[in-house]
């Protein structure tokens, strides 16, 4: 199994979710993150003092899947999250050694 870690722009979340559920992935864990990278932030102003807000709100998806569908999943996500503008985000793939579904105790593939 693999764990796919995806960083995308927040407003792309729904598109990505739909896309990957279409190819049969049922579960995702999502969290709000701040991103630093090539894309630059904006400046704010408060009582005459300017300041740079250089983190950017991003959304991180963690998806555990079986090896065979990784490739398609990566493609699908790349399409769904794509805007072409800087800051679109990344996909990271790790190896997942074990998975357990707490409710049933099922292991690995059954747990996903």
């Amino acid at each position, binding site marked *: 199994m693999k764990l796919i870690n995806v960083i995308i722009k927040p407003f792309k979340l729904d598109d990505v979710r739909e896309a990957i559920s279409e190819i049969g992935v049922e579960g995702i864990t999502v969290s709000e993150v701040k991103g630093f990278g090539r894309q630059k932030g*904006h*400046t*704010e*102003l408060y009582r005459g003092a300017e300041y740079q*807000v250089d*983190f950017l*709100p991003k959304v991180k998806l963690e998806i555990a899947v079986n090896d065979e569908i990784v490739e398609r999943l990566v493609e699908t996500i790349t399409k769904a999250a794509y805007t072409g503008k800087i800051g679109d985000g990344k996909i990271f793939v790790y190896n997942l050694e074990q998975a357990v579904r707490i409710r049933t105790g099922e292991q690995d593939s059954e747990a996903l």
Partner: protein
Amino acid sequence: MEQNIFQLQYALDTFYFLICGALVMWMAAGFSMLEAGLVRAKNTTEILTKNVALYAIACIMYLVVGYDIMYGGGIFLDGIALDGASDAEALVGAVLAESAEAGFDGDAVYSNASDFFFQVVFVATAMSIVSGAVAERMRLWSFLAFAVVLTGFIYPMEGSWTWNGEAVFGLYTLGDLGFSDFAGSGIVHLAGASAALAGVLLLGARKGKYGVDGRVNAIPGANLPMATLGTFILWMGWFGFNGGSVLKLADINSANSVAMVFLNTNAAAAAGAISALVFAKILFKKADLTMTLNGALAGLVAITAEPSTPTPLQATVFGAIAGVIVVLSILAFDKVKIDDPVGAISVHGVVGLFGLMIVPITNPLTADGGASFSGQLIGAATIFVWVFGTSFAVWYVLKKVIGIRVTEEEEYEGVDISDCGMEAYPEFTRG
């Protein structure tokens, strides 16, 4: 000694105007909180800025030319202090003469400055109605430009035809046709809503409000306690709005009238809140707080056209009907994709019209005043055509010249950043 009685009467009536005026000024805070509570966090600083600025603009513009257009008295209110008298002494004499002529039970004699103060806050109210309807997508400076025109010209013109009894472009006089609007269901609320509608039509809906499939998406307000506070503030301020519109306190008849107005205003608001709450529960199976708040406001708007003649029972019934109307109206506007984030057009426009139309029920046309259905219709039409028409023109010019809508990115990022460069809740939300 009789003179001193007139002096006391003058002082008491002046004080009554000032306190009622202060309560209406307080409504500016109510609109601010209501709107700040019903928009998303990312558009909150900007709506607050709009509300503070529009109140300030209304006060200045009405002082500069508005009051003069509506009631005369010169621009910059020059001479409002002495009212033509050579000095304070002479003024007292003039006032006492006036009082003697009017007679103790006659029309109120009170300070001109207090009259201006009471009038100016009404202009601000009309303009406050607009800000809510165009929230979350209209540019700050275009909005403020419009505020200058509405408070300095559009409203005062309309006010001169109604409360100052001038002929509409010299054509017809509303009063003679049986038009009566006690505290401004039409003159203030319908007027504000008409200007708002014109703006919304040229502005379009917020991005994402209406799905392609025609479904209406919810865009929840960020801070409902604020919205509730705003409604309570408006409710309280309305006692000044309607109570002060009796225009006299200091004799038994007038005092009784003011008291009835307080009683009926409160009853109509309470009935509107309950009926909207129950009606929304029936429709949606949930107790919708925002609809309940709109219901209370609807009750207030409905009774505003005539709060002194209904019995408490009638006031309650009128308020209850208004509470149902406002819920239906809000749903209807969404159906036709007219996006009004706070429901201002429904509360002040649709219900304002309703308020005008029920006046003849309790205050029918007679020799000494009152209203007829036809008169109310003509009056409502006059107000709507004038305010909607001129507003549409102004919005249109603004749209062409400087633009009235923020860019799509700005709207997505929130207008707080683009217009004010400042977040309303920097620590509570994720930039």
